[in-house]
C-alpha cells in the first residue's frame, strides 16, 4: 500500500521520486493538522534534552544554560556522598518491588476468580466497586486513609481503644508505612489490573477448555495448566514494564499520603519526592537534575536488563 490505493502506478512513482516538500504539497491538510502536535512535542520534549546538561553545572536562572558555571560531577558527588542517596534509592526500588509483587499476584488471583464466577450480575457489580478507587486522585485517597489512621478520630485507633489498648500515632511510625502504602496501592490498583488480566483470560479460546474438560480435567487443573500459562505473556509484559519503571516512584501517591512529614522519610522518601524538594523547596535545579539523570540512567539499564532476562528464559514475554 505504498502511496495509497487510490493512486495509479504513475502517481506512486512521482511521489517516491520527490521528497518531503512534494508530499506536503500533496497532503496539505494532513500536514497542517499534525502541526500542533509536532510543535508541542518539539518544545516540551526535544527542547528539554539540552537541559540535561545543567546536571554538570551550577545553574543560574539569570545566566541560563550557556552562561552558568560548569562544575563537572560535583552535583553527583554531593548526592552520592549524602546519607539520602542510598535511602531514597532503596525506598524507591523496595516500594516498587512490593507494589509489583503484591499487586500483580492479587490481580491475577482476582481475575481468575472473576472468570470462574457464572453470576453475571455479581461479577458486574463487584467489578464496578473494585474499579472505582482507580479513578480517584491520591489526594482524595489520602483523606480516606486519614479517616482510618488519624490519631484522634481514626477508626483504627477507636478500635484499639475499644479493646483497651493505647492510641497509636501512625503518622510518626516509619516502620508501618511500607505496609500501609502497599495496602493503599492494592486498594487503588488491584481492581483495574484484575480487569486487564480478565480480558486476557476471556481472550483464551473456549475450545481449549472444552477439550481439557472432555479429557477429564477439573476446573482446578484447567486453571493451573491452561489459564495461568496462557495469561503469562500478558502478566510478564506488564511486570516487565513495571520493572522498567522501578526507579520511578509514584510521586502523586507518596506526596499526597506522606506530604512533608519528615518523620516518615526513612521508609517512604523516594527519588521523585527528593527531586521535587531539591527543585522547588531547596531551589537547586542542578542538584535535582543530577539525581534525575542518575534515575534515568539506572532506569534505562533496568528496562534493558529485565528484557534481556525475559528473552533468555521466557521468549514470548519479551518486548523486543
Amino acid at each position, binding site marked *: *500500500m505504498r*502511496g*495509497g490505493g*487510490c493512486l495509479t502506478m504513475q502517481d506512486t512513482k512521482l511521489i517516491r521520486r520527490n521528497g518531503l516538500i512534494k*508530499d506536503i504539497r500533496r*497532503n496539505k*491538510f*494532513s*500536514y497542517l*493538522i*499534525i502541526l*500542533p*502536535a509536532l510543535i*508541542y*512535542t518539539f518544545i*516540551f*520534549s*526535544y527542547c*528539554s*534534552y539540552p*537541559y540535561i546538561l545543567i546536571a554538570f553545572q551550577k545553574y543560574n536562572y539569570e545566566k541560563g544554560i550557556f552562561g552558568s558555571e560548569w562544575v563537572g560531577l560535583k552535583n553527583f558527588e554531593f548526592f552520592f556522598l549524602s546519607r539520602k542517596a542510598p535511602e531514597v534509592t532503596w525506598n524507591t526500588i523496595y516500594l516498587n518491588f512490593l507494589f509489583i509483587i503484591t499487586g500483580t499476584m492479587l490481580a491475577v488471583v*482476582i481475575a481468575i*476468580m472473576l472468570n*470462574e*464466577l457464572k453470576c453475571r450480575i*455479581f461479577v458486574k457489580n463487584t467489578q464496578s*466497586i473494585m*474499579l*472505582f*478507587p482507580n*479513578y*480517584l*486522585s491520591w*489526594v*482524595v*485517597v489520602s*483523606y480516606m486513609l486519614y*479517616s*482510618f489512621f488519624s490519631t*484522634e*478520630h*481514626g*477508626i483504627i485507633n*477507636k478500635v484499639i481503644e475499644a479493646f483497651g489498648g493505647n492510641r497509636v500515632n501512625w503518622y510518626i511510625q516509619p516502620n508501618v508505612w511500607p505496609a500501609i502504602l502497599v495496602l493503599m496501592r492494592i486498594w487503588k490498583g488491584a481492581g*483495574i489490573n484484575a*480487569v*486487564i488480566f480478565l*480480558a*486476557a483470560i476471556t481472550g483464551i479460546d473456549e475450545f481449549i477448555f472444552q477439550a481439557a474438560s472432555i479429557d477429564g480435567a477439573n476446573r482446578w487443573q484447567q486453571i493451573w495448566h491452561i489459564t495461568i500459562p496462557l495469561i503469562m505473556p500478558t502478566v510478564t509484559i*506488564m511486570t516487565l514494564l513495571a520493572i522498567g519503571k522501578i526507579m520511578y516512584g509514584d510521586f*502523586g501517591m507518596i506526596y499526597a499520603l506522606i506530604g512533608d*512529614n519528615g518523620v516518615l522519610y526513612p521508609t517512604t522518601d523516594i527519588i*521523585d519526592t527528593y*527531586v*521535587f524538594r531539591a527543585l522547588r523547596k531547596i531551589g537547586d*535545579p542542578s542538584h*535535582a*537534575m543530577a539525581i*534525575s539523570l542518575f534515575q*534515568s540512567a539506572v532506569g534505562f539499564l533496568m528496562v534493558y536488563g529485565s528484557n534481556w532476562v525475559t528473552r533468555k528464559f521466557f521468549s514470548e514475554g519479551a518486548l523486543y
Partner: protein
Amino acid sequence: MKKFSMGTFLIYLFVTLFSIFCFLPMLLTLIVSFSDEMSIMRKGYSFFPEKFSVQAYRLIFQGGSNVMQGYAISTFVTVVGTLLALLITGLAAYTLSNKNVKYRNAMSLYFFVTMVFSAGVVPWYMICRALKLYDNIFALIIPNLLFNPFNMFLIKNFMSSLPDALRESATIDGANDAYIALRIYFPLSLPVMATVGLFYGLAYWNDWWNAIILVDNRNLYPVQFLLLQLKSQIQMIRDLQYLGGITTGPLPSESVKMATAIITIGPIVLLYPYLQKYFVKGLVVGSVKG
C-alpha cells in the same frame, strides 16, 4: 447445572470481601461528611454517627471556604484542557493513519522517541518557566497534559483499522482530505475519541502536579490542590498538638474536610457509567495489545 461447591463458595466470599475492602473507605468518607460535627468530636469517625447533618455541605456551598473557587478553576481547566488535548491528539492521529502521507512512520517515530526518553521534571520545569507558563491559568492547562503520544497512538490504531475502501471511494467521489477526515474518519472514531477524552478529562480533573510545581497564587489552586493543602496544614497542626500540646485556633471541621473530598469525587461519580464503558475498554486495549 453444576453443584454449588465449596470452591465456588470461597471464591464468592473472597471477591465479596475484596469489594467490601474497596468500598468501605469511600463509604466512611461519605458518612463522615454527613455526620454532625459534635458527634465526630465525641466518638471519632464512625460508620454509625450519633447524628446526621448537612451542615458541612451548607458551609461549603455558601462560600464558607475557598473550595467553590477551586471547583470553578478545576472545571474550567478540565473542560478547556480536555477539548484542546482531544483536538490536538485526534488531528495528529488522523495524519498518522493517513496512508497517503509518505512520512507518517517517520513522524510516528518522532513521537515515539519522546515516550521512551524523558528528560524528567527539571527540564520540563525550565521550559515552562521560559514560556511564562507560571502562576497563571495556562500553567494548569498547557504543560504536561495537553498532548500524550500514547493516546494519539490509541486513536491512530483505531483509524488505521478502518477499511481503506472508505478513503478510496470517497476520493473517487471527489472528496478532499479535509472532507474525508472531518466527515468520515472522525465521526467513525467517536468511541475511541470518547475513551481518550475520558483519559484526558480524568487526568485534568485529578491533577495537582501542575499546580504544585507551577502555581503560587492561591486564587488559581484547583480543588485537588486545595484539598491537599487543607490536609497537610491540619495534619501538621494536629501532630504538633499531639506531640507538644500546642494549642491553635479553630481548625476547619472534620466533616467539612470529608465533604470537600466527596464533592471532589462528584464529577467522577456522574461520569461513572461512561468511565466503565469507554475508559476500561481503552485501558484494556492499550495494555494487552499495546
